[in-house]
């Protein structure tokens, strides 16, 4: 498998006048092409910082981050898609205008690209809402629209920053299932940050466990399920709770 993203002894600290707070120390891991990797860890362990670093929006203070073996430096070139906790759909734009925001910013809004994005809206059941305002959509539909906005630039890597945590539990399960299936269906590589262990087990191929702040990689656990199980189906298998317990122990073990 091809190495897509590589983090080599990455470190990052936050600076305030009263002092320096190390957020991440010596982080090493690799994400391979087509993989779904989840990062879990206690709150405040630097998970979101790790995503900002991986997206190129922040520059690491130590170590290096490589994308396809090349140093990652420019601010979001569109090869890395970022999905947030909130959908951030703009209320003054229709759904169509919202999902086309990326190509519009990059001046890549060709007729062909537009067609491709509209096709995605069709595939994921949002086409009839293309002229609607975001407020007319349910929370799950909005998050789906946000994913299509991210995919519109055809990113090589998707970064998901707790994208389901603002939804209620019911919606969270279905949207998690939805989005997980879309990402697998589109053959995308994804890096998910979450504090929800069952979400990590239901979606990921590998789970990276971070320690308390300053975050370091505690362990990397490979998750194996029979192929082609949807996230919801995974939750119904007997292995599911074993993985959950394994992660739970890993998170709560103090060295």
């Amino acid at each position, binding site marked *: 498998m091809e190495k897509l993203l590589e983090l080599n002894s990455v470190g990052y600290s936050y600076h305030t006048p009263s002092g320096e707070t190390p957020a991440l120390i010596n982080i090493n891991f690799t994400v391979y092409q087509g993989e779904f990797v989840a990062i879990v860890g206690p709150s405040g362990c630097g998970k979101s910082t790790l995503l*900002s670093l991986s*997206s190129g*929006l922040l520059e690491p203070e130590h170590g290096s981050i490589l994308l396809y073996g090349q140093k990652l430096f420019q*601010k*979001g*070139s*569109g090869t*890395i*898609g*970022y999905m*947030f*906790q*909130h959908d*951030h759909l*703009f*209320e*003054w734009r229709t759904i169509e205008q919202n999902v086309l*925001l*990326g190509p519009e*910013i*990059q001046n890549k809004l060709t007729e062909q690209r537009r067609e491709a994005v509209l096709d995605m809206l069709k595939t994921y059941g949002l086409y009839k809402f293309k002229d609607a*305002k975001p407020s007319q959509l349910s929370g799950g539909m909005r998050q789906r629209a946000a994913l299509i906005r991210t995919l519109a*630039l055809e990113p090589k890597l998707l970064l998901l920053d707790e994208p389901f945590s603002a939804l209620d539990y019911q919606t969270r399960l279905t949207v998690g299932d939805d989005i997980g299936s879309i990402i697998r269906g589109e053959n995308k590589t994804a890096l998910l940050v979450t504090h929800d262990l069952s979400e990590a087990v239901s979606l990921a191929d590998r789970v990276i466990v971070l320690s308390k702040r300053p975050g370091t990689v505690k362990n990397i656990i490979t998750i194996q399920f029979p192929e082609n199980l949807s996230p919801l189906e995974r939750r119904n298998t007997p292995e599911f709770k074993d993985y959950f317990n394994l992660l739970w122990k890993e998170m709560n073990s103090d060295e």
Partner: protein
Amino acid sequence: MSEISLAQQKYLTARKRHRRTVVCSRCLIFVLFLGLWETAAVTGLIDSFIFSSPSKVLLCFYQMLIDKSLISHIAITLMETVVSFLLVLLCALGITILLWFHPRLSETLDPYLVILNSLPKSALAPLLIVWLGANYKTIIVTGMSVAIFGSILSLYTSFSAVDAEKIKLIYSLGGNKYHVMTKVILPSNIPVLFSLMKVNIGLCLVGVIIGEFIAARSGLGYLIIYGSQVFKLDWVIMSIVLLCLMAMLLYGLLGFLEKRYLKRL
């Protein structure tokens, strides 16, 4: 349409009655006030030479309308107000955008803006006459000076209050600072701009009247100051009433535009 239930009907009637009471009370206050004022003036309870009376104000309005002097006074004040309002809008927006693009500049200038904003602007008017002359320029600049600094400060605050993640989204889609401004900050601040405009129109009117008090040969502010000097209090009160109407009209117009924008959203 389906049938309206009894409870819904009851609710609707109660609502209608409430609305009617409010509107009637408003009208009643207006009529009572005018009536009392007129009777007091006619019966000699108050001196109509000093306090004028509704009928005298109306008569004065009619006479000045006939000899065509009033229209030009109103037009001049209206023009000065609208021009200073538009200039405030343009300058405040331009300066705030500039400050947003240069955080260091805005941090440097912040105390100066705060001082200028809290300064009583009428204190500047005599200075402006000396610099710009006793003409419409002074009046328009006085009108602007009342509103502009506050506008910049509050616009800048709401520019800075835009959700940091929305800005991060633009960067993650490959945008730059210019995209952040045009795709997020400006569109999300249009409602703020409208409420600022509603405040500013009143402030500009205040500034223009201050300017006219000291530097004008025409306009409603001039009419007020001149009328009080020659004891033509009909003029003064009529001008005040006309200013009330003008303020209402301009505010209403902006409210109407705002509603139309919000409906489109």
